[in-house]
């Protein structure tokens, strides 16, 4: 019996040593068959147990079981180590050239004027303005007369006009939408709209395009004041150009507003210190505005003694140019892909 136990111990010692030395799945499998298989060494030893006495069998059986367990355990441990190693080797062989370019996707782009217009719209939508629209070929009445610009008014020279007939023209500003909105709404209150759109003037150079875009704004209620206009435009300037932006109002003249103002923002390039972009003034003009002229209110059906309103109009190109640092307005209409792909 002792001999048998001794054999088992020596099988275990040998097996463990060889398992330790195995370095492939095949050799490990071979060892499993050699030691644990049906014709394996351990099985052979167990078969020979028949020669032992009844009382000796359990003891030897116990030893044999523990040897089997030990060998099985070591094999599975070794197996996982080898599998691990193989996986690592495989992964190492699968390494990509991560510097090759990624697959090209084809995403289009919105025109920068659309991007800027949407941004402007978003700011005013947030302040309770809705979006109104009007025709681009307009009646003289809406473009001029109803805005307190009768025929032969010298201020008509401020906007060089494309005429179609004596009574129809290409609108020179988005202000006619003000009038159409008021006519439609009066005498209901409040009115709060912006009107983005194309406008046309007979001008063509690096800073003027015969077609350009404006966003008009109009608010009418019982007690609208110039201070409200200042507040709304300050919010706009901060959201459009950054929280540090300051606004400055300068008295100006538009026939359809009284009082009238032009609004400057502190130069985004130099923060107001003065640079080439702002002609060393620290300020950039961005829009015209004012309190709706009483005659305009009256012509559109509101009682100017009871209600008041403000209006403003800004050039979208001007804002795009300031935001993106574009140096020639004509680029916005040339539709050069090398330009459009930058936005």
């Amino acid at each position, binding site marked *: 019996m002792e001999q048998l136990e001794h054999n088992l111990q020596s099988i275990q010692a040998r097996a463990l040593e060889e398992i330790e030395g195995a370095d492939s799945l095949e050799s490990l499998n071979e060892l499993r068959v050699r030691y644990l298989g049906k014709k394996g060494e351990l099985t052979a030893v167990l078969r020979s147990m028949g020669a032992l006495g009844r009382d000796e069998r359990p003891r030897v059986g116990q030893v044999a079981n523990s040897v089997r367990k030990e060998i099985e355990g070591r094999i599975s441990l070794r197996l996982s180590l080898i599998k691990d190693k193989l996986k690592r080797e495989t992964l190492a062989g699968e390494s990509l050239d991560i510097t090759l370019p990624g697959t090209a996707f084809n995403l289009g782009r919105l025109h920068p004027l659309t991007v800027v217009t949407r941004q402007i719209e978003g700011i005013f939508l947030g302040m309770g303005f809705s979006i109104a629209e009007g025709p681009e070929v307009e009646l003289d009445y809406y473009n001029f007369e109803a805005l307190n610009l009768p025929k032969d008014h010298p201020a008509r020279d401020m906007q060089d006009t494309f005429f179609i007939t004596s009574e129809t023209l290409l609108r020179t500003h988005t202000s006619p939408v003000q009038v159409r909105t008021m006519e439609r709404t009066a005498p209901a209150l409040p009115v709060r709209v912006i009107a983005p759109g*194309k406008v046309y003037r007979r001008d063509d150079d690096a800073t003027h395009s015969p077609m350009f875009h404006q966003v008009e704004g109009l608010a009418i209620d019982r007690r609208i004041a110039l201070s409200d206009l*200042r507040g709304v435009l300050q919010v706009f300037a901060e959201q459009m150009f950054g929280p540090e932006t300051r606004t400055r109002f300068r008295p100006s003249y538009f026939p359809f507003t009284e009082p*009238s103002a032009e609004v400057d923002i502190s130069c985004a390039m130099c923060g107001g210190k003065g640079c080439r972009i702002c002609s060393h003034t620290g300020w950039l003009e961005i829009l015209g505005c004012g309190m709706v002229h009483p005659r305009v209110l009256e012509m559109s059906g509101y009682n100017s003694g009871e209600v008041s309103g403000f209006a403003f109009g800004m050039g979208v190109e001007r804002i795009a140019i300031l935001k993106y640092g574009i140096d020639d307005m004509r680029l916005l209409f040339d539709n050069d892909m090398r330009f459009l792909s930058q936005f």
Partner: protein
Amino acid sequence: MRVSLKWLREYVDITVPSGELAERLTLAGLAVEGVERPGEGIEKVYTGKILSMEPHPGADKLFICRVTTGEGEDLQIVTGAANVSPGHVVPVALEGARLAGGMVIKKARLRGVESRGMLCSGQELGLDTGFMPPDQAHGVMILDRELPLGMDVKELLGLDDTILDLELTPNRGDCLSMVGVAREVAALLGQRVRMPKTRVAGTGPGPGEVARVDIDAPDLCGRYVVRLFRNIRVGPSPRWMQERLRAAGVRPISNIVDITNYVMMELGQPLHAFDYDTLREGRIIVRRALKDEKLVSLDGNERRLGEEMLVIADPSGAVAVAGVMGGLATEVTGGTTSVLLESAHFNPVSIRRTSRALGLRSESSSRFEKGVDITGCLRAADRAARLLLDLGAGEVAPGVVDNYPGQAPPRTIILRPGRIEHLLGVAIPRHEAAGILDGLEFQPKVVGDDLLVTVPGHRVDVSLEEDLVEEVARVYGYNRIPYTLPSGVSTRGARTPRQSLEASVKDCLVALGLYELVTFSFTAPSSLDRAGVPQDSPLRNAIRLQNPLSEEQSVMRTMLLPGLLEVLARNGSRRVTDLAVFELGKVFLPSSSDPLPAEKTVLAAAATGGAPASWNRPKQYYDFYYFKGMAETLFGRVGLAGYSLERETGNNLFHPGKAARYSIAGRPLGVVGELHPDVLENYRLPPVVVAMEIDFEMLADLAGQTGKYRPLPKFPGIERDLAVIVRQGVAARDIVRVISKFGGGMLREVSLFDVYRGKQVKEGCQSMAFTLKFQAGDRTLTDQEVNGFLAAVAGALSREFGAELRN
């Protein structure tokens, strides 16, 4: 308006530096566009006399001058100027002098001869040479021989001045004058204006005895004041007057003309001087022109006048276009001895129409059309008389003829402090408002709680309470008004469904790889020729501009695609050959019933080349199927269903075999297709360009609302592929129709995944392979059931098209 501060100081004390003055004027509504300091940087340039001049021994075109500046030793200066000679007094730059533009003068040797300074031209002193006689504009400036030597020329030439360039708004015609600007400065600085001297003593018979004024058109001429000057000595005006006129941008001509211009610049009242002796019977008749009446104006051009134009006439005919331009026949010349001076007021609208009709704009007409102070005519006439005497240019006849049919009491306006607060959002106390208005020469009087404000004659732009509120606000300071937000009923800002749809269509196309364009709404009439649009097409009926910038931009577009094709061609010429673009914009279609055209929004897209390829993915070329897929993806995105597709025929823009028209219930929705080779040639485009134009109005009408949720299928579906061989020419759509019809109620989806022509199939045939998806709502389908459906489909295809199954 150019304002010399040196001149302005004559009327008002300027108590702040010029930079601050510019800022304050700007913030009060008189925008200062520029501040010029013409003499800035000029140093050590003095008056000097040329004592002698000798030719340079080593150079043909140079002279050696001996020059004195009155003190120290004489200077030897080499000059190339040919317009000077000994005895001339000229500006001399000494060693170390600085000239305009920063040039520094050093001792130098010119062809071996020492030169210790330079004789200066007007340009080198920063002067506008446009006002100088031609010989002086190009050579050295020749000064008055009587000038003391050694005088600083900066002072002499008025270069120690600061010029403010004012960009005036059209309502402030009153500030087109020195006194007008002085009034603003006085109001801002708390000063008072000093009016120029106008007192004159006359001699001889007054104008009432020798001249007569008749105003036949009092609606167009509210006042006509006449003064008479005798024993006129026409000559140049004094230097100070010339300098000031130049600083204001007016060319000096002669003492009489310069006086009229000087008074206009000073007081804002245009004046006109007639040679009295050329006026028949000494009579002035202000009347409308006769039909086809003619007048040779001062510039020598014969003008044909119209019956609505106001003229100044004598009994023989028109002698001037009132307020616009004088006539040649009555012009003041060197031989003039008596002058009849006009100081009048004309109707702004009439002046504007006349000046437009004649294409003539003058300093005078631009002031009259903005409105001139009718109460100031007399003062201006008197001021001119005073200057005439001061200049010793003649004698003044006593008194005036003042024909004043337009006389009216001054305008008064009630200003309520509550109205100020309502409009501005800040309360400005009544006394403060009154103080501001008083400073601007309004006359405010307290009446109850309010102010009764009398408007001064020069403020023709002020007629309403709101105008007064602006006056108060701009002096008070717009930037002292607080920031508030509108109170009252709150409103909800939202896009309309249509506006949201426009945004999502753009976003969808961008996601599909298209670039958005913005092209001009006007185009050339010939653009439709290039696009193959037939002459009799309704698209040829375009809105035409009366005054386009060019023929290329003379009609409003009736379609978008030509503009897109131009963009493709332009980019192609810049070697950008892969591009896909779209525009969502309006076309303009004339209406027979409405003066305004119908403005319809159209969606157009065009592409050439292909979507960018990668090293690991082949290039996808833009072709008919690419755009068809894109269009239908878009339709799906906006919930547009029930459209049908037909071959587009008879459209010269598109390839006859590669274009399709979408329609819904018979209404055309749009066209997708590859372009006709002729059109490609017209635009010089590459061989394959695909395009579409969709009626966005219809798309918006029919786009679906958000659909209802449909429960997800509970049982798995079964997919089977079916490949059939059919004759070429059998349309895929017809096969799908048969499959759908015979596939049974469980057939959910049919999609084509392959089309093959080639060796594997018979000549003239093609294989088309479809995936059919079957699904039941209440159970899992069995293979046997599906096999049954497929067999039915195969049988039907064989009957209908002679199709064979392909294995």
